[in-house]
């Protein structure tokens, strides 16, 4: 195996990252790529920079590259050797840092790390050795980055295997104390994590003392690998340690020193340190949390999100043992101030708003995980958080939610005024929905309406006004139907009293049944019917007017003024919901009549059939049985139906639904004469009422009508279908094909087929010439046409020339194979070919062979077809670019 070039590796790395699984499965074997990677990593001909990018693959995708622990071990050993061979040059420091981090990642991720693994032992001793070079004394400045990487690798090991370094706390601390360069952060994080883990494990197991722990200077605790899940920081509430006063004093001096120097760390690291130490103090009950007091003022004033979060976590952990009531009020006021601070980025402000609703109070009333308002968050404090139309959607929702809670939990004129403002704000949002607000404004308005209904659903007057607003919006924009249905569904779930959704349903129903049925109704009618179908489920909403509306529709259908399948189905869905959800006496008679009308007069046969089926059900079944039959997804009890007409079927609702097909059974194959042939693709069942739908990918063609196949069976040869295409522009296209069919089991399926390609030659037609014409007339016609398509003439005429060497096949053969039916005349080696391109375009070709090259002169009255023609000629002539 040769060494790849840097560029070649860069390409490999890019394609690996784009899809590691696909990349590895496309190669010869998983190992081959890994082996090459390792080999080239130790090659001297590859630059350090390339090696670093190669290592990132192992750093980010170790489990994909090393699926087994054994492979991980092998890789780690190879990389360790690699590391050992690199000289201590500052130039190589970057590569050595990467190597250290990669070895650890591979060992941990592949689960190769363990006491029995040689690589693990070697790696750990290497890390400890590197870390012991304090203040750059041995290797100098150049190796400082490598030391930092060693500390970080040790920290990650301790993090993944808590307790691994728990017997070496004393030596870790001494390193932490002695290091003065900025790498001290790495030592501090390592020590504080090891300390936290050791204390938690000690409290968990109860073996040993805190004093022994802090003075520990032994080997590694390999057993930590087996017990990795023993202690979780989430369970510290139930852990405690009660060390002796001497031990507590020792611990206190450790903690004070760490805290005193904490301000020297980067904020993210500081917040980790504080969190580790807070957990230690939480478990060691003899140590007072007051030790953190000196840090608090600095934390309260910080602009850094991780540090402020650390102070909130301290608050949650220690409550009143660290924070006085005054501190609490102060922190809360600061938090409210920060939640609207103009200098902070919006995501951070949203985080603080969220923290307000989970504020760790000294004396919490509610449970921790639910949203709740802190007692101290008064209307006065919260009034600065009023939403405005200029807020981004999340901010607006967060503020509205918080303000609603404030108004809900407080009483008096302030709260009333607050509710009024909130409502005004929602109305203002509604007007942006009508304006040019788009999807975002729509989504936002419905969410605020939902929140308002959830919190203030019992306020009759405001809710009535909201209903009016919603109805007004629907009147202007029917496309809001799905949003309204969703709002009805969701508010019904959260409100104890469904009065409001009911009232909204009634108001919308009233609006819809009153709309004049004038064209163009197709677009809006579907949406109206969708809403009515939803309202038909409300047993509290009188449905007489809905049925009346449907009757008007059916009359129009009877008069052939509408009658689309979709409208019919939507109409029947309403009928179905009425049958299922409404008491029989309410709409029974009217509905029976309506269904009968549909079954007799609706223009679509499928709709008629389904209406007849419903009619039969309604006429023959009692209401209870009807409900059971129509319940969604409900399994029918065979016994209740044993005497009914439908007893032999298992589940009618399943039969009434269109299911997505689990696999594609069908395939369209082309016959030679460009006719598609339908054939089942796999184990062929018998399929009935197969409806093929074609969807255009562009507007080059007229819509393609559906094709119906009554029965498709494997026993019979596949049927030949003729597809009539009417081009509007003579270009190739692609048709998406879907099939709707019923199986022998009576279920209806929908399935997507392979798209149908309409190629350029598919639309070729020959010139319509009288059979009796002699060659001379034909030639004359062609020449006349040829000169009439001269580009100097009118409009879109164009001329082009296509040449290629005829080494592959002689021109005559090519013309006979591909253009025989379009050949108009042949004259002294010149083939004159005329092709008609529907709807009204022409292509004329004069082909001749000159000195071993074919030369085709082209004229057309639509220059836009030239690229397609040229591609086609290139294809048939076998010209390779």
């Amino acid at each position: 195996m040769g060494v790849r070039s840097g560029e070649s590796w860069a390409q490999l790395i890019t394609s690996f990252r784009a899809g590691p699984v696909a990349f590895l499965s496309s190669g010869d074997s998983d190992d081959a790529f890994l082996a090459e990677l390792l080999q080239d990593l130790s090659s001297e001909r590859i630059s350090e920079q390339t090696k670093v990018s190669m290592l990132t693959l192992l750093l980010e995708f170790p489990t994909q590259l090393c699926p087994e622990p054994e492979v991980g071990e092998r890789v780690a050993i190879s990389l360790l050797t690699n590391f050992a061979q690199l000289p201590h040059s500052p130039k190589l420091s970057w590569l050595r840092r990467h190597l250290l981090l990669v070895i650890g990642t591979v060992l941990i991720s592949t689960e190769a790390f363990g006491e029995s693994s040689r690589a693990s032992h070697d790696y750990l001793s290497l890390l400890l050795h590197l870390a012991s070079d304090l203040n750059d004394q041995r290797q100098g400045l150049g190796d400082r980055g490598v030391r930092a990487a060693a500390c970080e690798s040790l920290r990650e090991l301790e993090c993944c295997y808590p307790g691994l370094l728990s017997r070496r706390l004393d030596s870790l601390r001494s390193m932490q104390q002695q290091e003065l360069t900025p790498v001290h952060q790495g030592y501090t994080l390592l020590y504080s994590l090891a300390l936290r883990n050791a204390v938690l494990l000690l409290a968990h197991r109860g073996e040993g003392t805190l004093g022994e722990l802090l003075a520990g200077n032994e080997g590694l605790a390999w057993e930590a690998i087996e017990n990795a899940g023993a202690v979780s920081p989430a369970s510290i509430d139930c852990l405690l340690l009660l060390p002796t006063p001497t031990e507590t004093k020792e611990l206190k001096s450790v903690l004070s020193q760490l805290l005193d120097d904490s301000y020297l760390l980067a904020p993210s690291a500081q917040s980790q340190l504080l969190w580790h130490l807070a957990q230690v103090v939480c478990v060691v009950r003899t140590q007072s949390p007051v030790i953190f007091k000196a840090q608090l003022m600095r934390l309260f004033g910080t602009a850094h999100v991780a540090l402020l979060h650390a102070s909130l976590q301290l608050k949650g952990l220690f409550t009143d043992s660290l924070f006085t009531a005054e501190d609490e009020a102060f922190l809360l006021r600061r938090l409210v101030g920060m939640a609207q601070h103009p200098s902070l980025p919006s995501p951070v402000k949203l985080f603080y708003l969220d923290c307000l609703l989970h504020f760790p109070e000294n004396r919490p009333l509610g449970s921790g995980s639910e949203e709740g308002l802190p007692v101290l968050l008064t209307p006065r404090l919260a009034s600065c958080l009023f939403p405005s139309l200029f807020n981004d959607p999340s901010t607006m929702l967060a503020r509205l939610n918080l303000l609603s809670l404030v108004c809900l939990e407080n009483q008096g004129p302030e709260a009333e005024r607050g509710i009024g403002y909130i409502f005004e704000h929602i109305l203002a949002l509604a007007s942006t929905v009508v304006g040019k607000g788009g999807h975002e404004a729509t989504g936002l308005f419905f969410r605020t309406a939902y929140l308002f209904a959830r919190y203030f659903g019992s306020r009759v007057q405001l809710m009535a006004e909201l209903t009016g607003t919603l109805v007004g919006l629907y009147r202007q924009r029917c496309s809001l139907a799905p949003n309204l249905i969703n709002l009805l569904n969701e508010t019904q779930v959260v409100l104890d009293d469904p009065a409001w959704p009911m009232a909204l349903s009634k108001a919308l129903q009233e609006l819809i049944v009153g709309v004049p049925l004038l064209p163009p109704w197709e677009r809006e009618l579907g949406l109206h019917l969708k809403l009515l179908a939803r309202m038909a489920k409300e047993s509290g909403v009188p449905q007489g007017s809905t049925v009346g509306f449907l009757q008007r529709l059916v009359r129009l259908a009877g008069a052939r003024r509408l009658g689309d399948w979709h409208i019919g189905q939507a109409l029947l869905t309403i009928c179905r919901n009425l049958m299922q959800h409404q008491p029989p006496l309410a709409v029974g008679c009217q509905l029976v009549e309506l269904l009968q009308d549909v079954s007799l007069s609706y223009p679509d046969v499928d709709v008629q059939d389904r209406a007849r089926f419903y009619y039969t059900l309604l006429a023959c079944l009692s209401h209870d049985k009807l409900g059971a039959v129509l319940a969604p997804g409900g399994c029918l009890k065979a016994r209740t139906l044993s005497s009914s007409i439908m007893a032999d079927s298992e589940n009618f609702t399943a039969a009434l639904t269109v299911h997505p097909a689990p696999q594609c059974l069908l395939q369209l194959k082309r016959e030679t004469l460009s006719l598609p042939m339908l054939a089942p693709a796999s184990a062929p069942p018998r399929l009935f009422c197969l409806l093929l739908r074609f969807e255009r990918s562009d507007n080059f063609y007229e819509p393609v009508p559906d094709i119906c196949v009554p029965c498709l069976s494997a026993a019979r040869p596949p049927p030949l279908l003729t597809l009539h295409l009417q081009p509007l522009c003579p270009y190739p296209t692609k048709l998406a094909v879907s099939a709707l069919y019923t199986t022998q089991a009576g279920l209806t399926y929908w399935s997507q087929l392979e798209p149908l390609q309409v190629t350029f030659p598919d639309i070729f037609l020959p010139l319509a010439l009288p059979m009796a014409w002699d060659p001379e007339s034909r030639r004359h016609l062609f020449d006349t046409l040829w000169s009439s398509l001269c580009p100097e003439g009118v409009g879109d005429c164009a001329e082009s020339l296509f040449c290629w060497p005829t080494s592959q096949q002689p021109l005559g053969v090519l013309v006979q194979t591909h253009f025989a039916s379009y050949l108009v005349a042949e004259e002294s080696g010149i083939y004159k070919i005329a092709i008609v391109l529907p709807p009204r375009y022409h292509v004329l070709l004069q082909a001749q062979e000159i000195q071993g090259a074919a030369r085709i002169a082209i004229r057309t009255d639509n220059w836009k077809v030239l690229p397609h023609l040229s591609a086609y000629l290139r294809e048939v002539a076998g010209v390779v670019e």
Partner: protein
Amino acid sequence: MNNTNEFLLLYCRRYPTVEKRAKAFNGASYVTVPEDSAFLKALLFELRLTESDKSFVEYRDSCSRINKTSVYALTTGGGDLWPVLAFQKSGLIYVCLPLVEQSLKPHPPLISISGISQAFALLSGLLLFINSSQKNEAEMSAKICQLPGLLMQACPLGTPLDTNLNGLLDNTHVPTNHTQKQPVWRVSTYKGKPQVNVCVTEKVKSMQYDKRDVADMWQVYGTVTCKCDLEGATSNVTVSLNLPANGSPLQDILVHPCVTSLDSAILTSCSVDVMDDSAFSGPYKLPFNPPSDLFNLCYYTSQVPVPPILGFYQLKEEELQLKLTVTLKLHESVKNAFEYCEARIPFFNRGPVTHLEYKVSYGQLDVFRDKSLLVWVIGQKFPKSLEISLTGTVTFGSMSKEQPVDPICTGSTAYVKLYFRIPDYTLTGCYADQHSVQVFTSGKPKISTSRELISSDYYIWNSKASAPAVYRTLFF
């Protein structure tokens, strides 16, 4: 991330050891992080950024699915991926999936997840780095190329160590010969004359309605930026911010993490409280260990008694034309020396301006017909009377696609927006001078200080039509 209309992945970094820990915390309910393309698809779907899919999708668009934070749940093949933190800025999306060290079922509150604020810090650092002094695509791609190296230092194994990526750019180490620990961020290699630069920038926002039932709002907020070029690894600097006798106290002060200690008096004043005459009014002493790059030493807000410019805007639709009157008054206490000052009067949801008749008492009026915008250039000074006015009538052509639209400014709802900058002036009076900067280092440093006031979202609404209120008080 963005390129024309399509989002492409610019850079991604995975941390397998963190994923391993996440698996341990969640067992069977762990959701695998999908491959890049699948992740991007799920993210764009959740953020509704895909062009093709704008229709109502219940599990994303349901009104009960209320996202009140920048933390999202992404629907992937293996389940819901949570908590995915995502920021959007200037056509880029910054995403991070932090580790949650507890079970995810049910979702714990964000405040209990340590990783969340770490993710915020990391993304904010990333955002600052990408957006600092980036002008063209070449610079942008150069920055993207620097990311792997920078993240290798900032967050080598998934635990953020230092999220100030700009500070990590200078990778040279300084030898230590000190007896005390150095701050982590102080890696300056500066050699030369010591100098300290302190700049106080105040911004003023305002919403003026000229109505009885809607309260006007104005708000001042400031940023103190600092650049310290000092030799040596440890040097302490103290900046004191001063207020004159009639100055407005600084509130909601937030300080940079390099500030070593804070007096509680500095923090007590808070904008959410009722104003208190006995409020602490400085000097605000901030001792710190300066980082080597430019940084924001502190942020504050303040409440000043009056807005610097009081405006009135009246717009009436008469037959086919609009009649407008704009009056602006500069408050007498404000320094009348602008770098620039202009009032922009946009017209939305209408056709282009076809005809304009106007009279200005001062300054000049420019018309941008295609943009339906009038710009009243006031210049460097208000006249002696401190009050200027504009009256005019505008006629519009028919509405076309190129004309600006706005969901709020429908009907006669309209605004005038002011843009101005006053150098060497702050509304609160806050300043730092030669004497208020102390540097504890060898050699006398050169100290330069400056201040400025800049308008930001300064709106004056048409008082003859409804206008969106931004400030509501529950108390009268």
